[in-house]
């Protein structure tokens, strides 16, 4: 796999390869359909590629074992699906609050509960935005093909390092299991962001001291810094600071470090937005069906634009608001009962009608269903 430039693999394998190319050297996970192939591939490859793999006793353990490994200096990830994601939620908050770079892959299936283990869904979108208690700003990406599983996984790791946040990789059963051609560029062409290591010596280093970009530099255990890291509200030294002032300062900063970089975190693939009467906003597997619906609408002479969200969180509200000024309506298909559409509505703020195209999951939309909404929006 390493030497080849072009392979024919399923999304789950492409995701695992993307992680390896991004420098992931520690994986902890727990088997769950439809994500298991990611863990299986990592268990096969990591021992041969300078990394360590462990199958933990559950998702709770997996989601914190990776954080221990991150503080020992590794790039880390875990993978799961809905029920496992629910179990991991407390540690999403730990990663957000202790600013531990890590990647959570969620190969979404139909939910709630055990739901449809072998069939697709996109109903975890709001869970990854809000699922852990307290306030924080996660980053989430949504690939729609095995190629993007590879490419965007590298981006996911890079963003985790740049902003020191938990990054969610929002796949789904179809993207995970579909097999397509994947181009793997030569390693030297792949841009990999390394950890923001502090250059300060022990004694001068403070774990949560920040500069302009509001993201602290990191050190690792074993290097003589004698750091203290806690999930309690903490000050710049990393020490517990149980008072409203320290809490306000810290919670604001972990939001501001993302919000201040909101423009850099916009990643939308746009198609035919210029002059469009209707815009479709989609992400992940649904974007492929939406593209087919857009094509059908165009065949009927409608001017339809398509915005495919690569980064869903933070939500690119400003761009959506701009688009809303020039179209008659916005159509939002997704494999859930209407989650990301809530953010679209918030950004559009009543300027034009927003048409949700919900779907309970288990399969993808029929393009005609989305087409119907496009036609309705154009009327």
């Amino acid at each position, binding site marked *: 796999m390493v030497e080849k430039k072009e392979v024919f693999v399923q999304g789950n394998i492409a995701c695992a390869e993307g992680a390896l190319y991004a420098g992931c*050297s520690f994986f902890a996970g727990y088997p769950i359909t439809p994500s298991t192939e990611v863990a299986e591939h990592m268990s096969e490859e990591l021992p041969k590629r300078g990394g360590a793999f462990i199958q*933990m*006793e559950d998702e709770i353990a997996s989601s914190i074992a990776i954080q*221990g490994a991150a503080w020992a200096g590794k790039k880390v990830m875990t993978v799961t699906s809905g029920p496992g994601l629910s179990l991991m939620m407390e540690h999403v908050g*730990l990663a957000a609050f202790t600013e531990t770079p890590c990647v959570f892959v969620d190969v979404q299936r139909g939910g709630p509960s055990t739901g449809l283990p072998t069939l697709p869904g996109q109903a975890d979108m709001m869970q990854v935005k809000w699922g852990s208690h307290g306030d924080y700003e996660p980053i989430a990406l949504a690939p729609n093909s095995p190629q993007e599983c590879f490419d965007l996984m590298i981006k996911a790791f890079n963003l985790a390092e740049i902003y020191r946040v938990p990054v969610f990789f929002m796949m789904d059963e179809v993207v995970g299991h579909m097999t397509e051609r994947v181009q793997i560029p030569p390693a030297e062409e792949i841009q990999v962001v390394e950890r923001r290591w502090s250059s300060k010596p022990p004694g001068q280093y403070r774990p949560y001291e920040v500069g302009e970009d509001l993201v602290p530099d990191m050190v690792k255990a074993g290097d003589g810094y004698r750091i203290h890291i806690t999930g309690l509200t903490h000050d710049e030294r990393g020490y517990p600071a149980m008072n409203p002032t320290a809490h306000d300062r810290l919670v604001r900063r972990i939001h501001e470090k993302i919000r201040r970089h909101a423009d850099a975190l916009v990643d939308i693939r746009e198609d035919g937005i210029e002059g469009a009467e209707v815009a479709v906003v989609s992400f992940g597997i649904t974007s492929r069906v939406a593209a087919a619906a857009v094509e059908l609408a165009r065949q009927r002479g409608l001017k339809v634009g398509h915005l495919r969200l690569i980064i869903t969180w933070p939500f690119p509200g400003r761009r959506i608001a701009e688009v809303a000024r020039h179209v008659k309506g916005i159509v939002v298909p997704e494999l859930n009962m209407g989650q990301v559409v809530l953010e679209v509505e918030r950004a559009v703020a009543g300027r034009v009608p927003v048409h949700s195209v919900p779907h309970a999951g288990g399969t993808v939309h029929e393009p005609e269903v989305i087409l119907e909404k496009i036609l309705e929006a154009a009327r």
Partner: protein
Amino acid sequence: MSTDLYRWADQLQLGTDIDNPVMPFLRQDRIPHIWCPGCGIGTTVNCFARALTESGLDLDKVAIVSGIGCTGRVAGYMNLDSFHTTHGRAIPFATGLKLANPDLKVVVYSGDGDLFAIGGNHFIHAARRNMDIMVVCVNNFTYGMTGGQVAPTTPLGPSQTTMPYGNFEPSFNLPFLADACGAVYVARWTVYHVKQLAKAMQEGLKKKGFVFIEALSPCPTLYSRRNRLGDGVDQLKYYKEKSVQKNGVDTKELALGFQEEIIVGKFVDRERPTWLESMNEHFSRVLGTRYQPWGVTHAED
């Protein structure tokens, strides 16, 4: 009893400027600590500091991980790389830390509720794997931080805030559990047995594999007061009078009753390949030169 202790301290003229050998191991800018007078957690920390001194370990390579609760605060006071994680999950965090940098000596220091109720699953699996970490459990039979609720270690009988009519649930025999799951070193002492506890910790720090040390400790504010057991010193008297040292005894015999006999000692000390040793040995055999033993060449990555 406690007034005797203060008189004794006065006689020895223990001042604030005394050069305590434990101080270099503490984050002095975080003192005073949160523990109640008469609590035994601080005593175990003192033993741990002494064990570290005696161990000769490079303290830059020792990391301590705690969960949540009164004992969960230990990590925050130790002048080591220290991690105060989530409730019950110190062991899996420590597992990741240790595997990612096998050069580290990783110690998990937490309470009985944290390690054996919410964290029980992680404990049994880390012991089964023989993960190379030392787990110190300060067992005070109760949830101190939340105000004295029943724990999986509470003996039959005593009242707790969520067992107001007395506990009717059987409790865990922790050394037996650790032994059955595969721990390579198992010991129990009380905070009365400071020398023995410090020695057990010292041995534990030297030992490769999953080490479990149970340290019985008074909780005078909640457990003792609620059950009319007197103050911390009264519990130390109980430990002194009712403890029987039986090294090597079958761990099945170590169940604890309410204010009954306490068997202390070292019960298990055996050799078993650690998870990391097993992985390296196995992959080297199966994958040959395609495998670079983990932690040997990658420790400095």
